């Protein structure tokens, strides 16, 4: 979440009238940034992750686990921690961002990794920072300073994540704990928060989630209310239930109250908002209360950022399936493994006209996707990007595109932003409209950061020395920091491989959409095949002399390209990660490519050993030798004596699961060696 401005938010009817003004100011700010920073060169690789936590509150006497709504108090405690703040950590949103870096007064932290590796945090290492999130039961933590590519930094990722967990836990009440799980299993079910509030709030108007679950900062309730108002109904999220042997058929979500008459939106369910065979959810909190693992990279210049954006794009759905960790929603086992579509539905502010349910009258376009969805257009300035790859019927604001082009921006980048800017700003603070827009990015960010696509192309913030960045957003948060570090480091190394070997991962973007759908299916990681490019490598050197392939006329001469449909095929994730065997289409696999990269650069033995452990986790998840979090949790529920094979995950099962997840997160142990099915055998 971006920085939280304070002010007077406009209700939707007012905001609607100012939407165009905000868009125009946003474009003005974008152009300003683009003109100032387009010439940036040679920015170094810096990267960082974001870890989001759910705060669990235990009632050990009654064996119940609920979400704690004490985010504000916990953040206050973190912000009030002088030591943390002085060490560069703390809560920027409360402390302000001008914390001057001073060495940590904490003597030093000893952090023992899951593998027994001991890391000593030196006094000078900046401590993590914590941020508020949409859910009042969530915390976000980022490293105190971005990581570089130095081996020392890569090896500090996992200890840093553990440190964040430790610090967060330290500022909670004894019965509270931070866990890393994308969605609370009993979110929106009976009594699921501490303290408990009835679900009667006027912001969400949800049957299931009280408004008190939303971060009380005025931005968040306004966001929820304005999305609902703009849409003209509550959001409607339907995820297919997992039919177990005792699950009633047909399955009609038994938790829905069809007789509530509190808000006009209570009609939604009477008008068929809930689908048979599905778990029905009706509020932003179901989605925006989910936790993700997001990685942001700084590129050397705008060109490299655009290239990485495109090349990582096809990996989004693959990494989503590989990191699957969301098998339970609203107390039901579901037939999907990931959170993505829940969030997508939770912030879908499109009107009926925009969704194509009614003919266009008041709206400008029919829009195929939610604001939170997969990327719809590639944007690199790359000769390998064939027009055929951008094969979605892209909705753009032609006027905005023209304005960008008239100001010198190229076709593809203009198209990208003209696509993002078809949306309305949801939350507008009155005060920001009265201030000069120059030198800031607030209006631009208003649109940019409420387009939650699976990649985000991030221009530099004005005035700073931060470069062009790309954010990889599809991955699910993992139960342990070992896994989170593994996924983060895998992604970072993969970007280096893409750049070093000049890989080409382009497939038509409609196939990325298709992969996104496939990634949702239960056990997609092993059971589904995904569209993937057959040959990632640059064309072989043809009669050109040594190494001049990059520049020689011979290699730039257009060769007759093969048909786009010939360029890609269906692969298992195992094949994509570990390579193909016995196939006419030979592919070495992404993990062996990373190994080959590591054999090329100078790596010390300790680092290599640690990295091997991370790569092995990814490799074995892909091959099925290790379980994803989703399938591990399914098995846990399935084997629980109180589970009745009816898809229902009750309080006691949930309590035991939360205890187990906590133990996994803090100690890497699940008892009876059960953790090995998830993490493998660790040194």
């Amino acid at each position: 979440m971006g920085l939280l401005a304070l002010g007077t938010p406009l209700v939707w009817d007012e905001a609607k009238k100012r939407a165009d003004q905000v868009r125009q100011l946003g474009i003005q700010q974008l152009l300003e940034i683009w003109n100032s920073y387009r010439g940036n060169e040679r920015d170094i690789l810096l990267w960082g992750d974001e870890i989001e936590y759910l705060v669990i509150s235990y009632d050990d006497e009654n064996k119940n686990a609920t979400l704690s709504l004490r985010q504000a108090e916990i953040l206050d405690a973190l912000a009030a921690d002088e030591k943390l703040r002085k060490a560069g950590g703390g809560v920027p949103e409360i402390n302000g961002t001008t914390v001057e870096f001073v060495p940590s007064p904490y003597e030093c932290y000893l952090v023992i990794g899951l593998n027994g590796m001991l890391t000593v945090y030196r006094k000078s290492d900046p401590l993590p920072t914590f941020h508020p999130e949409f859910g009042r039961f969530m915390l976000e933590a980022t490293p105190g300073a971005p990581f570089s590519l130095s081996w020392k930094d890569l090896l500090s990722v996992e200890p840093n994540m553990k440190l964040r967990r430790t610090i967060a836990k330290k500022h909670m009440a004894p019965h509270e704990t931070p866990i890393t799980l994308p969605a609370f299993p009993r979110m929106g079910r009976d009594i699921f928060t501490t303290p408990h509030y009835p679900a009667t709030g006027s912001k969400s108007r949800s049957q299931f989630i009280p408004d008190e679950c939303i971060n009380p900062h005025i931005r968040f309730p306004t966001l929820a209310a304005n999305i609902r108002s703009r849409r003209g109904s509550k959001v409607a999220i339907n995820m297919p239930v997992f039919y177990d042997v005792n699950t009633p058929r047909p399955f009609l979500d038994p938790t829905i109250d069809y007789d509530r008459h509190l808000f006009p939106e209570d009609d939604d369910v009477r008008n068929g908002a809930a689908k048979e065979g599905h778990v029905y959810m009706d509020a932003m909190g179901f989605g925006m209360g989910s936790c993700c693992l997001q990685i942001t990279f700084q590129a050397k210049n705008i060109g490299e950022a655009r290239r990485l954006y495109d090349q990582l794009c096809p990996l989004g759905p693959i990494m989503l399936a590989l990191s699957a960790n969301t098998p339970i929603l609203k107390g039901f086992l579901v037939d999907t493994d990931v959170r993505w579509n829940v969030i997508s539905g939770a912030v879908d502010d499109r009107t009926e006209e925009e969704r194509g349910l009614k003919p266009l009258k008041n709206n400008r376009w029919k829009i195929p996707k939610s604001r939170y969805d997969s990327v719809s257009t590639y944007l690199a300035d790359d000769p390998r990007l064939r027009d055929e790859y951008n094969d979605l019927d892209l909705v753009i604001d032609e006027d905005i595109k023209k304005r960008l082009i008239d100001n010198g921006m190229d076709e593809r980048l203009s198209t990208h932003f003209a696509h993002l800017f078809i949306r309305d700003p949801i939350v507008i603070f009155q005060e920001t409209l009265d201030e000069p827009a120059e030198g800031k990015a607030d209006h631009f960010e208003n649109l940019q950061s409420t387009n939650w696509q699976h990649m985000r192309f991030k221009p530099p913030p004005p005035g700073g020395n931060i470069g062009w960045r790309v954010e990889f957003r599809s991955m699910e948060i993992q139960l342990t920091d070992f896994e989170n570090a593994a996924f983060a480091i895998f992604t970072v190394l993969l970007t280096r491989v893409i750049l070093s070997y000049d890989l080409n991962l382009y497939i038509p973007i409609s196939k990325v959409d298709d992969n996104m759908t496939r990634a949702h299916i239960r056990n997609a990681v092993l059971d589904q095949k995904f569209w993937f490019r057959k040959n990632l490598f640059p064309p072989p050197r043809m009669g050109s002399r040594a190494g001049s392939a990059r520049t020689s006329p011979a290699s730039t001469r257009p060769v007759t390209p093969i048909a786009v449909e010939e360029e890609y095929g269906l692969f298992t994730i195992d094949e994509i990660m570990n390579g193909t065997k016995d196939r006419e289409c030979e592919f070495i696999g992404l993990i062996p490519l990373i190994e080959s990269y590591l054999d090329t650069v100078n790596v010390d033995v300790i680092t290599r050993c640690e990295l091997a452990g991370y790569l092995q986790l990814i490799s074995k998840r892909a091959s099925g030798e290790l379980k994803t979090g989703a399938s591990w949790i399914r098995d846990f529920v399935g084997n629980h004596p109180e589970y009745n094979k009816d898809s229902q995950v009750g309080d006691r099962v949930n309590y035991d699961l939360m205890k187990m997840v906590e133990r996994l997160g803090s100690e890497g142990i699940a008892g009876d060696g059960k953790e090995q099915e998830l993490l493998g055998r660790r040194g």
Partner: protein
Amino acid sequence: MASIQCILNTGNIMTAASEVLRSPPKSSTELITSLRSHIRSSPPSPPPSPSLSSTTKSPLYIPLPPTPEPLAEERSEYDVTVKLFHLSSAPTASHETHTRDAVKRVLENLGIETIDLLILSLPGINFDADDFANEDSTEDVEAWLATYQTLEELHQDGVISRLGISEFGTTRLEKLLPRTTIKPSVNQINVRDCCVVPKPLILFAKQEGIELLTHNDCTDILPQETLQNVLVDEFALLGEERKVMPQWVAKYTAVIRSRGVVENKGYIAMAEIH
């Protein structure tokens, strides 16, 4: 019959990954595969000197004389590492000439004047995780030293910033170190499973300020027979009566330090044809 010097090069194999990385990488095959690929992708060269006459002093280039591939960005952005393999068929007496020649060729190829790290690979020295075997006391420290001293000179001349050795266990290190003027700052070892690096070596290296780096090069990077086959298959070069004797291999990498991007990686090798 006098011998002919034959200079082989692979070009930048990062841009030829489609050929080199078809199957899971084993660097035992990387040099050979990339050499074959480079030969095949090069335009037909003039027929190898008719009778391979040794009248001319200039070496025979395979596939062709390397075209320099200057680094794209400023020199200071890069870490340039060279690993120089002196092969078993090269006499120790030639090491000095070979070292200087190899270094010169890499510098020319990358259009640079200095190497950040040069790692020396000596024939017959293989790392053993047990750290005891294979290191008999009769080994010729003098021979290592003679070769190593050329590196020290190049260091003193400012051509090589840091020196490295490879496959040295503790016993060998203990023998070599006291005799060096410029201590190696790197020891590169091939460990399949990195977690079995012997503790004494880790401790000793730490104490001596030597970085232990990993590699995945095979012991015999350019076997005589394999090279002979390549030259026959790809170049129709050698007759029965000719024999090829590989002398040295220089593997070079140029990595953009702050971004971890490998811009150039390749091999230059020298063989004598007798």
